[in-house]
């Protein structure tokens, strides 16, 4: 016989912020109970979690998103690469901030190394890296005229408030606590796709709505995140009071490590 497996609840609440309140990845989720059965019924390897894994059918802006992933850990690079590919994104994974800048052509070298046509739609970088940290990389990107509009997401295994604040203040789109999950990547992708679509529409209309784009990139989409919140918070704690889209602001607890 197989025993049922109850999983721990990981739950980190969103710290309250003063205006504007950027939403950022602050929590892991979902207590899941797995009943493991034998033989044919035991599709343990393919256990399907609430969200379906599948190839996205978005046509949106017409092309795939290209994501530049930066992480010194080979394991994490492999995982993020797979997460992105399975979410229909093109991926370039590099091991350091220096390499990332080289790829972008920001390293001061004159050669562009075939950069043309490889537009990057999103940069995801680990925070703690030897040499140049993710924070330093973020700053360099935001200082660059050519690339500062590219959304940058910081990933970290440490849930340190001051670190999160610093990154967001420097212009990071989001701060994701590792390990990164498929839900995180899909949420990001949808958000970026929406941004690209709007940009495309504005260009077509001939509107110079740069400001809108800027605003958009500063305040992450309110729709997908809260609905995900709701879906998940309803799974989390049956007795929990936070079941509305206002979930983040209602969470009273602050969890800060270190």
């Amino acid at each position, binding site marked *: 016989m*197989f*025993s049922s*497996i109850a*999983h*721990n609840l990981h739950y980190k609440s969103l710290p309250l912020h003063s205006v504007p309140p950027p939403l950022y990845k602050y929590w892991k989720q*979902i207590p*899941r109970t*797995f009943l*493991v*059965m*034998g*033989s*044919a019924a*035991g599709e*343990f*390897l*393919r*256990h*399907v*979690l609430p969200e379906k*894994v599948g190839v996205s059918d978005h046509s949106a802006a017409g092309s795939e998103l290209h994501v530049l992933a930066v992480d*010194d*850990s*080979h*394991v*994490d690079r*492999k*995982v993020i690469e*797979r*997460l992105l590919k*399975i979410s229909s994104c093109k991926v370039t994974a590099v091991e350091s901030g220096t390499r990332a800048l080289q790829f972008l052509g920001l390293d001061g070298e004159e050669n562009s190394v075939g950069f043309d046509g490889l537009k990057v739609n999103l940069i995801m970088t680990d925070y*703690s890296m*030897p040499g140049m940290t993710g924070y330093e990389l973020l700053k360099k990107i935001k200082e660059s005229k050519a690339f500062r509009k590219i959304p940058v997401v910081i990933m970290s*295994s440490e849930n340190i408030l001051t670190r999160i604040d610093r990154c967001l203040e420097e212009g990071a789109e989001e701060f994701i606590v*590792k*390990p990164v*999950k*498929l839900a995180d990547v899909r949420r990001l992708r949808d958000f970026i796709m929406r941004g690209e679509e709007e940009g495309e529409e504005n260009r077509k209309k001939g509107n110079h709505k740069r400001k809108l784009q800027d605003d958009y990139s500063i305040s992450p989409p309110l729709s997908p995140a809260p609905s995900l919140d709701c879906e998940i918070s309803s799974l989390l704690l049956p007795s929990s009071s936070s079941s509305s889209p206002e979930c983040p602001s209602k969470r009273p607890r602050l969890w800060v490590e270190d």
Partner: protein
Amino acid sequence: MLGLGADRLRADMNRLLALLFHQGVLDEQFLQLQQLQDETSPNFVSEVVNIYFHESEKLLRNLRGLLMDREFSDYKKMGIHLNQFMGSSSSIGAKRVRNVCVAFRAASEQNNRAGCLRALELVEHEYCYLKNKLHELFQLEQQRVLAAGVRYPIQN
């Protein structure tokens, strides 16, 4: 009755996985990795795990090397290796390994060399257990794939 081989192996795998989850050796992140495995990437989990083993053994060697040095004092450097190891352990769902690293880190932050040595032994122990069990799991998987590929004239 070789046709049942694949089913039996799958049952064995599930049982092993259930045990590992029950023992807290693996957590939901491991399931996430399995979710990422499909026809386009049929060996994803074992590939990631093998990279993890490779990286981890280097880090563990470094940690032991540092601590065995009589004149060891570079706790900061040790902290860096430790954080890397914790990060990748967490990325593959190696919960128990990661948890014993927390104790290690605490000892390191207190510059407690003896405590670090004890913690390192615990970490090595947990890591060995994990590695053995995952090897077992992957072997079962390989056998299952082979068994599932066998064709019989009677069956259709």
